[in-house]
């Protein structure tokens, strides 16, 4: 284990310049990511490892986080300087340590609750088709989907409103109660995702009983350059195409990003060569980001637009419908009924003001607009159409009396309205208004080998509609401890106890109608009470230079747990489901992972992970929609080609989904299945580099259906074997004056 060396030179310059180099070879590390904590701005090093961070008045004491693929992330406390050299040691496990935003200002290795961080660049070889599919590469995370479209995350068996997604601190509100309603966010411009499993993410939400997903925008760009990322991908099983472009500019005190994405997928092919009718979909999106930082002020603004047209498979006019009724011999991508037409506009503004070294203030305001329509039988008249508006304001005060102590307190409020515009006879939910208030405070402290944390939160909600008028007040808390010790190598153990409470959603209280997207008739219960979860989460990590292991058992005690239970009846061919409360239930299980990187083959990575969740009432009777246990293994080769054209990586991944036979009397068990994926990537290293990734999903053309799949209701299976290919490139354009500043930087670094 090598100790990083930092050499800093004090000057009166307001630019922070430096070079990131390999500790052993002294060679520059290209595209390292440098972030200044609390100012929330960063830069990437160039091809030679050099970087410039410009800020007119950097605080005297700053903390930098420097990370790079294949290297161990460093957190560096420095006095304001104009040139520094960061020497980085190789991290053979690529388990990057970084300051996570979901627990602000704290390295993920120091958090008292286990958090997972997924860097989207790590998924280059597996090339997931959507953001939620990307998230499923984390142990304990699976998805509800219908083939390739509109996946919804499921964390340790919890789904729907229990899993709350944030984009740069903005809560995503777009009818997330429905398990057929997608997130409305693509992978475009997303740098990383952080996940806290269970109710421990109390700083952001008290009702996230299943977990918090925090998405980070990619704010990194080379100084004084325009960076344009362009990619185009093709997926054979659905003749799917995805094209995207993202441009980023970092100049002086501002950062601008703008991008667009368009994808079109036809009906997907089943393993027998036929196609699932109306499994086609189209996604289009655009986003804009702007960051301005000057002196003690940091302003961020993000806008995101998305538009999706998603076919709803499982529609037939056959009086005696079977699985064959939904299958066709012709693959089609033209729009046909029934379909979902979903449009989102997300606005997010953030203002951070660093009063001094000890105090910071943060004000965040966001607005989300969602227009959700389901067209069943008519082209112009939707059977169901709702517009959801949600406005949120949040204020934080961050107090750091010492470097080892951090207190974050604040309050937030949101106003939400849902209005129907469709056929009144087909309304699934009534018009409603929801007003939320919350106050919270967190404490974090380091005491030698211990890290301690405590969070308290109070939430109040008023929900009003023509059918119900309810108010809820709930309090929650979390305490955690982390202990580090040395025995053979680094050992970390965490213990966290958290509670969470979720007031019932308007859908759970008042639903009464066909939910075509989920192929169900749903009935609510106006008398439901808030459900509550208390989770004990234990995490142990062991890490050497070439081997790491982690095991994370957990237990949740649930009260008034609301679940969608099948009833033994149908309405117009749809099975009837009712929202019912289970007074006492428990969920427990374990997530475990191992990573081996042989010393004799530093290009090889062997990884394996296992996750299992049991859910049952105290009767005991199984809870519905529990994910299958999953064992995932991956062998990956990472290469650095010495020639201009060469292979950069290979991957073989095996996923084994165990059978799920712990089901309720009206659910059916799900068989076990294997999925194998292989992939490779080739890079042409010219001035404008090109990278080609290609692979095969479901290599063995296995016929399977996941226990959580929406296709299971109608007796259908998932896509068959699929070949994919993706071409991507990054274009760097220098701005005026860049060459001069680069020359100065070079001279400056050489002089040291």
């Amino acid at each position, binding site marked *: 284990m090598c100790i990083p060396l930092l050499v800093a030179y004090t000057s009166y310059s307001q630019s922070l310049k430096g070079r990131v180099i390999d500790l052993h070879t002294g060679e520059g590390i290209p595209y390292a990511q440098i972030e200044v904590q609390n100012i929330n701005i960063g830069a990437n090093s160039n091809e030679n490892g050099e970087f410039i961070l410009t800020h007119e008045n950097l605080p005297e004491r700053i903390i930098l986080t420097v990370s790079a693929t294949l290297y161990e992330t460093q957190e560096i406390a420095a006095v304001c300087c104009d040139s520094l050299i960061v020497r980085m040691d190789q991290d053979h496990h690529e388990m990057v340590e970084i300051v996570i935003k979901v627990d602000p200002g704290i390295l993920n290795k120091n958090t008292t609750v286990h958090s997972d961080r997924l860097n989207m660049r790590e998924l280059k070889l597996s090339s997931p088709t959507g953001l939620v599919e990307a998230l499923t590469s984390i142990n304990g995370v699976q998805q509800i989907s219908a083939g390739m479209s509109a996946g919804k995350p499921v964390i340790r068996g919890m789904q729907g409103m229990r899993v709350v997604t944030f984009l740069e601190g903005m809560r995503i509100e777009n009818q997330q109660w429905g398990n057929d309603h997608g997130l409305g966010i693509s992978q475009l411009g997303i740098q990383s995702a952080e996940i806290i499993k269970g109710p421990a993410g109390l700083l952001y939400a008290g009702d996230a009983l299943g977990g918090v997903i925090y998405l980070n925008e990619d704010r990194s760009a080379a100084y004084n350059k325009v960076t344009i990322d362009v990619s185009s991908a093709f997926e054979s099983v659905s003749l799917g195409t995805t094209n995207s472009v993202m441009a980023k500019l970092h100049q002086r005190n501002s950062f601008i990003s703008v991008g667009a994405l368009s994808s079109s997928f036809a009906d997907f092919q089943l393993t027998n060569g036929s196609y699932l009718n109306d499994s086609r979909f189209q996604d289009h999106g655009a986003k804009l980001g702007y960051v301005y930082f000057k002196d003690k002020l940091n302003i961020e603004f993000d806008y995101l637009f998305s538009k999706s047209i998603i076919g709803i498979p499982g529609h037939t006019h056959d009086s005696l419908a079977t699985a064959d009724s939904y299958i066709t011999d012709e693959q089609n991508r033209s729009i046909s009924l029934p379909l979902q037409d979903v449009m989102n506009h997300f606005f997010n503004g953030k203002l951070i003001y660093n009063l001094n070294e000890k105090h910071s203030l943060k004000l965040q305001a966001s607005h989300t607009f969602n227009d959700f329509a389901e067209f069943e039988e008519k082209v112009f*008249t939707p059977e169901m159409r709702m517009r959801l508006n949600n406005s949120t304001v949040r204020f934080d005060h961050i107090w750091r009396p010492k470097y080892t102590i951090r207190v974050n307190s604040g309050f937030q409020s949101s106003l939400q309205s849902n209005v129907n515009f469709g056929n009144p006879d087909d309304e699934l939910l009534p018009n409603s208004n929801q007003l939320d208030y919350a106050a919270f405070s967190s404490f974090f402290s380091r005491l030698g080998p211990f890290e301690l944390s405590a969070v308290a939160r109070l939430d109040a909600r008023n929900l009003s509609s023509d059918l119900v008028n309810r108010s809820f007040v709930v309090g929650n808390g979390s305490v955690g401890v982390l202990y580090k010790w040395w025995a053979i190598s680094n050992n970390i153990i965490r213990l966290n106890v958290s509670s969470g409470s979720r007031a019932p959603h308007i859908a759970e209280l008042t639903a009464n109608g066909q939910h075509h997207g989920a192929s169900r008739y749903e009935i609510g219960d106006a008398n439901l009470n808030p459900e509550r979860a208390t989770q004990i989460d234990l995490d142990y990590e062991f890490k050497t230079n070439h081997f790491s292991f982690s095991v994370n058992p957990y237990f949740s005690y649930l009260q008034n747990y609301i679940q969608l239970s099948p009833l033994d009846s149908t309405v117009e061919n749809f099975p009837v489901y009712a929202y019912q409360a289970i007074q006492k239930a428990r969920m427990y299980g374990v997530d475990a992972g191992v990573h081996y990187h042989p010393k004799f083959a530093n290009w090889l990575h062997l990884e394996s992970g296992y996750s299992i969740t049991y859910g049952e009432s105290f009767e005991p009777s199984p809870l519905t929609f529990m994910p299958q246990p999953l064992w995932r293994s991956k062998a990956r080769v990472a290469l650095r080609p010495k020639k201009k054209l060469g292979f950069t990586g290979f991957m073989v991944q095996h996923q084994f989904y165990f059978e799920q036979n712990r089901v309720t009397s009206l659910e059916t068990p799900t068989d076990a299945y294997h999925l194998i994926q292989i992939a490779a990537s080739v890079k042409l290293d010219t001035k404008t580099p090109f990278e080609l990734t290609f692979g095969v999903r479901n290599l063995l053309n296995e016929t399977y259906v996941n226990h959580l799949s929406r296709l299971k209701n109608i007796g259908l299976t998932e896509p068959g074997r699929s070949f994919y290919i993706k071409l991507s490139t990054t274009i760097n354009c220098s701005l005026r004056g860049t060459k001069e500043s680069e020359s100065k930087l070079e001279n400056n670094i050489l002089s040291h």
Partner: protein
Amino acid sequence: MAFAVSCNKNKCYECHYDGPNGEVEIGEKCGDDVKDLEENGYTVDSVTYEAHCGEH
């Protein structure tokens, strides 16, 4: 509705109505005629039936 208005304003669809003995084809209709059919139905012998257009 963005889908209905901007994408399909002038598009043509095969339409039918739900007659007393099942679906009855009424041929291809375009633009506002489709919207009118869907909103007001199809009238035969003073009886108005529900009409549908497009592939589904």
